[in-house]
């Protein structure tokens, strides 16, 4: 019951935060330099046509009015048309969002699980060779420059060995083949996902490993670990059932915190691998002054981060009874 109250509270907070983001985004785009109309306007267009376009886009209205229209459009699901594509923004977003969510969540879950597991092992062998190798490895992969890592992976595994596709998310021959079933299509996507996923995984798992390791080392000093040892439990049980669940709590927190930052990496990774996701769309829409699309991308990313944070919070409450009760 307490858990329900906690989640309700978090949802209300998230709605408020989302409103703030909505407003900030609106202002940000109105204040940003660069004129969207000039981007769209054809040099051959007459002055009249250009003005008509401005009216069509609602850009002649005062800022307050624009804001109200913006809110109304948001709640009625009207995001307008992309300046660049000419298609409804909603369609573009719905087309890209699943791709981002797929890559994003898989990489977060994978790197958190592997990081926690390896961090636990490293702490258990503190000061030994295994620990040094893991710690140094984690530091190196975590601090490496992401686009560089992505390009190196492409160069080695896609170009030199030709094991994986260089970019994209699907192979046309599989998707155009009417015979191909769901499984072969899914496998095709997974095959394309290996390199971008590896990039994100390599960048992120090190952080989780290091947090888990130090958290484990702190936890092992706790009195309840001494109790567990005094109870005559086996070392493995102490490590896995008493220390690890407590030590993993800070990792869960840091997953929540790092979600927003992973978006940066996500946008870069999507761009390098031409992964058709929100991140790549965001980068290109911003550089093209494509207001409606960029705005929607930002909102979607904010939404994804907020929802993932909610998931993390619920997970935290599930793992730590002190939050739940």
């Amino acid at each position: 019951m307490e858990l329900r109250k906690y989640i309700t509270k978090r949802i209300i907070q998230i709605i408020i935060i989302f409103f703030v983001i909505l407003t900030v985004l609106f202002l940000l785009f109105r204040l940003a330099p660069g004129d969207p109309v000039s981007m769209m306007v054809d040099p051959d267009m007459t002055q009249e046509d250009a003005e008509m376009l401005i009216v069509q886009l609602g850009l002649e209205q005062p800022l307050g009015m624009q804001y109200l229209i913006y809110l109304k459009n948001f709640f009625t699901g009207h995001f307008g048309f992309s300046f660049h594509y000419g298609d409804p923004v909603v369609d573009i977003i719905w087309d890209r969002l699943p791709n981002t969510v797929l890559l994003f969540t898989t990489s977060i879950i994978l790197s958190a699980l592997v990081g926690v597991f390896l961090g636990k092992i490293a702490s258990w062998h503190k000061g030994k060779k295994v620990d040094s190798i893991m710690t140094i490895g984690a530091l190196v992969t975590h601090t490496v420059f992401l686009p560089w890592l992505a390009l190196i992976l492409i160069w080695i595994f896609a170009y030199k060995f030709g094991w994986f596709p260089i970019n994209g998310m699907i192979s046309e021959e599989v998707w155009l083949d009417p015979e191909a079933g769901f499984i072969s299509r899914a496998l095709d996507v997974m095959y394309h996902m290996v390199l971008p996923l590896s990039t994100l995984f390599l960048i992120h798992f090190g952080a989780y490993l290091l947090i888990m390791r130090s958290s484990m080392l702190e936890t092992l000093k706790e009195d309840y670990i001494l109790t567990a040892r005094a109870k005559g439990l086996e070392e493995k049980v102490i490590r896995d059932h008493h220390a690890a669940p407590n030590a993993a709590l800070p990792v869960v927190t840091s997953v929540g915190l790092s979600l927003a930052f992973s978006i940066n990496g996500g946008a870069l990774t999507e761009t390098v691998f031409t992964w058709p996701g929100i991140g790549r769309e965001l980068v290109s829409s911003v550089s093209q002054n494509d207001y409606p699309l960029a705005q929607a991308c930002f909102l979607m990313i904010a939404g994804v981060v907020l929802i993932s944070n909610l998931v993390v919070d619920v997970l935290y409450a599930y793992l730590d009874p002190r939050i739940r009760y």
Partner: protein
Amino acid sequence: MALLEVDNLSIGYNTKKGYLKAVEKVSFDLEAGASLGFVGESGCGKTTIGMALMGLLPPNGSVKEGRILFEGKNTLEMTDEELRKIRWREMAMIFQAAMNALNPVQRVGNQIAEAILVHDPSVEKDQAMDQVENLFRLVGIPLDRLRDYPHQYSGGMKQRAVIAMALACRPKLIIADEPTTALDVIVQDQILGEIKELQKEFDLSIIFISHDISIVAHMCDHIGVMYAGQLVECGPREGVFESPAHPYTKALLSSFPTVTGKRSDLIPIPGETPNLVVPPHGCRFCDRCSGPEASCSTEPPQWVEIAPGHRALCCRC
């Protein structure tokens, strides 16, 4: 044969400042059903002895010499696995920091059941939980708190849960290290009373470690007074309290107030405890002693028998 015989036990810690001799040449016996209290100020080695008995010295701590015979078997020569099996089943511990002795993310009942299950694989989970219920009744925790988490307990309840846990496997020996220090005096008194009753009921041997001499006097029939890593006086309660022999025991007794006893001025003990990395060659209490002799600071003191079973480590006695 005594349940526990500790013979010439020396324990030290590797520290940045050097090898710290935390416990030196401590010997004592404990009969089944008897209770022995160690008293002394912080850092005198009481807790170190408790940890060594359980085989739970921290990684930088080690036993330098001596024997710990539990039912005739030297625990110091046991393998980790052998030691793990007698822990809790034969000797359990009530920890100094009972407030943090329970795992915050596990239900209290399960944590106690775990101790039962690990030492007796033939017990089913349900049976173990039944036993935990009995333990809760025994220590006076309402049964509906079985499935609670530690943070939902009050300090006194946590302490009771820790005691219930110590009793879980019906051990022969319980080492209680400052079990009530974090509690207010009323709860402290209740819990001490309960420990005493449980001791009688289960014919437990108890080693009680405390800095509070009045608690030790209340709880134990034998007293060991420790100072700077050494046992300096040891004997039956009446002997030690009514005719203390070692100057430190005397000073300790006059530095504690009593509620019921006769009114007298408290006398603080001047000076500081010696450095245990380089302990003095002679008597360690020499610098703080009220009337040292010339030989005290140069000659290590010898044990003197004051009365049968009552001895003191002092050459002036």
